[in-house]
């Protein structure tokens, strides 16, 4: 199992066991809360999806209307699951690649608690109608402060861990993670300060900032972290180095240079140079998608999942494919001629779902199934569950993305067809949406499996490691009490 790290033969080397042990507390805090938020996200996502079957479903209650349930689902997925799982997995990769113990694991766990506290306030805020109205930034000001402080704590000690590395030269995964750790606080602070402070920017500048933030979060942050995980795990699973560091470098540069300018739709009511620049940059991210595709293909050769436990490999392979497709869809949708049809339709939703869930979340699932047994030294309670989760999640996300993408294009053409009334167009699009509800159900089931597994594993870990200690500690007391 730990074959990959036995090569470090130096006598003063820290054993992988020690490194993994130092990860345990923050990793478990992050991953278990991520899994909880994942279930929250899919429950709210399912409620939102059911609204399209019957518009009056749960409409009596203000806090369960689509306009509140939907942002809760996105925020729980983005900040609750994706970012926490990403930070946890990133921490483990940093510690392993740096061959250093995690610096201040307890403070990282405290950071995660702050993050979760902020997120809880934020979600409640959205539910009671305190949403900010900016997409992907709905959480109110009070919540944002906790999220920001929590992130700073987690990121700072991840960077300290990276700084303590034994090998000064950095590998590809480390470039990606270093850039990502630094990226988020800048964009998050900028967006929230400019939008939610007492003197926010005015007019349409607000929308530009929100679009800029969303592009940077969805493409740059998730791209950097997700690809770091893909690159690292592919090497571990295949037990061979990455095909080309230079291609990885190309991927890195194209993400930070081009993807950071994407996100502003070509229809935006802003001075024309802004969407024009954004379109050019977004089309150039094609290079990112292609470089990743070539690099991973060449690294894998033919068998991508030839390991003793193929589930992580499957997740990673799916994640990589989803990445390529999602970024191609994104670049395609930025071309003005295409955007004239796809903009404002379910196509854009399909694209972002494929990026966030199909690519990022699937990659994280793979990483979780790979890492957790190593960190705890225990197998999953249900050995088959990773594979079942894989099939549920894979079919689920395909059932969401495919109908929405096709439905989106159809919807786009329908909006251009003046013979169809507004209601006709909307109702026609609903047929595709209703198929996607099935995908939501499958994803929810898979997510419940992940949460159940993580909790069962934690309980077992607790029983093995803490119960005997506690029993011993209490057992010595009893005879002592009995004697005098």
């Amino acid at each position: 199992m730990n074959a990959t790290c036995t090569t470090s033969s130096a006598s003063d080397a820290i054993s992988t066991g020690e490194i993994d042990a130092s990860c345990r507390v923050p990793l478990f805090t992050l991953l278990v809360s991520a899994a909880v938020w994942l279930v929250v996200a899919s429950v709210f996502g399912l409620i939102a999806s059911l609204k399209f079957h019957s518009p009056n479903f749960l409409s009596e209650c203000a806090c369960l209307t689509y306009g509140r349930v939907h942002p809760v689902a996105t925020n729980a997925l983005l900040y609750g699951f994706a970012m926490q799982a990403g930070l946890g997995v990133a921490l483990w990769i940093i510690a392993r690649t740096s061959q250093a113990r995690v610096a201040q694991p307890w403070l990282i766990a405290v950071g995660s608690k702050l993050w979760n506290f902020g997120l809880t306030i934020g979600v409640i805020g959205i539910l009671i109608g305190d949403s900010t109205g900016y997409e992907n930034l709905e959480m109110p000001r009070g919540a944002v402060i906790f999220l920001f402080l929590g992130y700073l704590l987690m990121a700072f000690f991840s960077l300290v861990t990276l700084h303590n590395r034994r090998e000064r030269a950095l590998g590809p995964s480390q470039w990606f993670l270093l850039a990502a750790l630094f990226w988020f606080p800048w964009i998050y602070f900028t967006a929230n300060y400019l939008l939610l402070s007492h003197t926010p920017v005015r007019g349409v500048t607000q929308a530009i900032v929100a679009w800029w933030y969303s592009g940077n979060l969805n493409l740059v942050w998730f791209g950097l972290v997700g690809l770091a995980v893909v690159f690292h795990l592919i090497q571990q699973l295949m037990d061979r180095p990455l095909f080309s560091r230079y291609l990885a470098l190309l991927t890195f540069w194209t993400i930070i240079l081009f993807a950071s300018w994407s996100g502003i739709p070509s229809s935006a009511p802003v001075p024309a140079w802004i969407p024009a620049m954004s379109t050019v940059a977004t089309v150039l991210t094609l290079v990112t998608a292609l470089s990743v595709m070539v690099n991973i293909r060449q690294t894998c050769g033919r068998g991508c999942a030839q390991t003793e436990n193929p589930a992580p490999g499957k997740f990673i392979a799916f994640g990589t494919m989803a990445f390529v497709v999602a970024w191609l869809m994104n670049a395609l949708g930025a071309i003005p001629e295409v955007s004239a049809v796809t903009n404002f339709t379910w196509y854009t939703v399909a694209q972002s779902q494929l990026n966030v869930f199909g690519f990022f979340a699937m990659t994280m699932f793979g990483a979780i199934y790979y890492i957790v047994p190593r960190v705890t030294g225990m197998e999953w309670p249900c050995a088959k569950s990773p594979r079942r989760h894989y099939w549920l999640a894979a079919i689920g996300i395909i059932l969401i993305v495919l109908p929405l993408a096709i439905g989106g294009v159809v919807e786009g053409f329908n909006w251009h067809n003046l013979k169809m009334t507004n209601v006709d167009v909307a109702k026609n699009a609903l047929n595709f949406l209703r198929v996607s509800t099935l995908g939501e159900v499958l994803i929810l089931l898979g997510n419940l499996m992940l949460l159940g597994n993580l909790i069962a594993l934690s309980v077992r870990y607790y029983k093995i490691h803490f119960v005997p200690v506690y029993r011993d500690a209490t057992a010595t007391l009893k005879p002592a009490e009995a004697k005098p």
Partner: protein
Amino acid sequence: MKYGPLVFLAAFLALSASWCGFVLTPQIQLGRAVQETNSVVTSEMYPQDRPGSARQGLEIYRAEGCAYCHSQQVEQKGTLVDVFLTDAGKNSMAVAAALTEQHLGTFSGPGLAAGLPKPVLRNASLDTAKALANLLKKAGANSQLRLVPFGPDIERGWGVRRTVAEDFIADSHVMPGSQRVGPDLANVGMRLPDVNWQLMHLFAPRSVTKDSPMPSYPFLFERKKIGKQPSPDALQQLPKEFAPAEGYEIVPRPEAKALAAYLVSLRADVPLYEAPATPPPAATNAPAVTNAPAK
């Protein structure tokens, strides 16, 4: 890219570039924009501040997440030009001959002067329209060019011109929306200016739009027993299947009234220099006064 500081520097420079491009520059270009007399037809300031209730309505719009299903951005593909004859001049025969020569249909001299202004050329390019205007001028007639933006959104009646940055100056938070589960709302106040209609639509969308997939918002309304006198605010003309039981009435809460006020205030139809559009003739020529019934 072996060393930490180098990676950090790369990320720092890349993010600074993007930040300067899409955060700083738009702020410099647009951040201090104020209401201006940038309007083509009037000298009024644009955009006008929304009335107080409509500003509160924007808060409800935000809280209820209306923007997840409704955009507020009208797009246009381009602008075409109509030529309207405003004055046939003294020699209407010559004008009619000139028009006929241009293959614009058959015109007769005496009929030309009736019902002015009337369109003689529609959906032409600016050059063609200008050429015709010159020709008419030579024949002694006066004409007017009207700019008509076109595109699927405009043909759907969602607006008369594209939405531009200026339309949002008076609002905060700005929610241009990213999806159209329902129609665009940039000009819903122009399209559906009736407050009672808006309220009925919020209370029970299917009471006014058959098969509408929009959820109803019953919690913005109150079902009240009719007292000595029915409430003046109560919803009028609710169809039977949506109406409350006998002796009860549906009264909008302040939130519903504010939201309806906001929706009715949504109209971005003033022609601007960066988005010109000539209002249709019916709008410019106030209803003929002569036919008004005597009171």
